[in-house]
């Protein structure tokens, strides 16, 4: 690639990050639960995307491609630190510290804080599946393709994660999906 081409590729990368970076950071924040880790995960994913940006930019769905890199960077980051998380049998009240009420949604700040904390307490695989399903609004087959596991495994993780979240909120009973 000539110098002009190289500049164009870099410019394209910057433009894309400027346009789509906020969405990636929001996804990473919901996955990791804090701003510092969210930045770390997104920066790591983008730094790995940069040298092959020419190829990625020609992908059918660039957003999906980079989103997968972010999700995998998140799970890699989690594995790197060997955090052993257990399904949240109960949610510790102090896990809700610092959570403030946001846009309406009809939820009280306490309920929202408890649900957010319960979500963060899920094992990483369940949390990732739940976030992609209920935040990114992806279908099960899309989540399966993105995370590299079978659709059945995704359904199981989502189902189990939701069951734990319901239990932590004191709710039981059949899902009415």
């Amino acid at each position: 690639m000539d110098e002009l081409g190289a500049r164009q590729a870099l410019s394209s990368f910057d433009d894309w990050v400027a346009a789509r970076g906020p969405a990636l950071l929001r996804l990473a924040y919901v996955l990791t639960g804090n701003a510092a880790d969210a930045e770390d995960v997104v920066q790591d994913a983008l730094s790995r995307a940069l040298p092959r940006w020419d190829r990625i930019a020609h992908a059918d769905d660039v957003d999906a491609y980079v989103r997968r890199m972010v999700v995998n960077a998140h799970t890699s980051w989690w594995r790197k630190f060997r955090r052993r998380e257990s399904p949240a049998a109960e949610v510790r009240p102090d896990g809700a510290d610092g959570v403030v009420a946001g846009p309406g949604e009809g939820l009280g700040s306490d309920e929202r804080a408890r649900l957010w904390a319960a979500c963060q307490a899920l094992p990483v695989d369940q949390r990732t599946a739940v976030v992609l399903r209920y935040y990114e609004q992806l279908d099960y087959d899309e989540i399966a393709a993105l995370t590299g596991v079978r659709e059945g495994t995704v359904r199981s993780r989502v189902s189990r994660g939701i069951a734990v979240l319901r239990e932590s909120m004191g709710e039981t009973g059949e899902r009415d999906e």
Partner: protein
Amino acid sequence: MSDFDERLSAVLTAEAEHAPPVAGLAREARRRHVVRRRRRVAAGTVTAALVVAAPVALLAVGGGDDADVANDPPAGAWRTVTHGDARADIPGDWTDHTCDFDGFTAEVYGPDEKAACQFESYLAFYGSATFDARRPPGIFGKQGYVYAGDFAVSAATETVGLTRRLLASARSESDPPIDGSEWQTVGAVGLRYDVPAFWGLGPDADLSNYAVCAVTGDRDAPPTEREDEPATYGSTSFVADRWIQVVAPTQALADLVTSTVRVEPRSDDVGCVSGSASDGDEGTSGPTDDWQRFAVEGVRFDVPDPWRELDCPGSGIYFGPDPNRCGRNDYLTFYARAWFDPAMGPAEIVSGHEGGDTLWAGYVFAGDWAVYVRTYDPQLTQDILATVR
């Protein structure tokens, strides 16, 4: 969506607004990339120095910036190569090759550069974030991929057995090594599936945590994922009309076993098979005392007990499990070598379809004959062919 689902979506959306600002994101990504590239160049310099100083030392770079040095193996033995937190075992005479794909380079292991770089016989680690999977993990014919640690491990060779052994060895650094050199076909709870002897952990290992289960249920209502112990990995899939759950000592093995599961026709059995598949209760393929030996036209071979010579007037020599089938479904037959014009090489196992089922076929030459075998199980086909003398 239920009310709970909607509340959860609302909470996640609201919390996402606390994400950090995007300012400087591209610049920081670029800085990280430069740092990583410098580290890689430094690693390459070390590699060159090692090659000059100690030609017998093998450096398992595997691509990327997390490469580690592997042990120098004895000739003929297998050795472990590492890449970041991923591990895999490869034949001792395989080496790593830097393959150039239109300016994009990758490190690939193989018996020689041509086989490796043309992906004829190879093993490679890919960053799972950038691995484009077009089908679920597992083995398909003589190629496949699995996940291990932060990486996807992809492999293909000339034989199903070697590919399966390579992929079965893929693991993260905290997982136990898996011996995938011996596999068995288990028939139980309405399923047939392939699994390494003793789940690849040896006869003395505690195998009680590992299982393959068939569970009835609606496709939209998956069973709870089985990962009973921290050291187990699960895979859940929907096959035919039931859920299949596999719990294995590594993610690679869970996915490999899952990819082999077939549901027995007309069976509605459910349940679990736990522990070792080699204690005789579940039924195994592979030559055992239950196999019968035959000699035809000076060629000896062994087939499983239900198989018999079939009465197929005018159709040649056929052996199979069903006396009513001649030249259909699963069978062994003889072709005159001089007239045999196969589409694959000797001992190569290829798949084909018949009536919606997948059959696995192969042949070997013996004297003036080509002994041709096809079954519903690649391992069984391979096992029968291996007995031909």
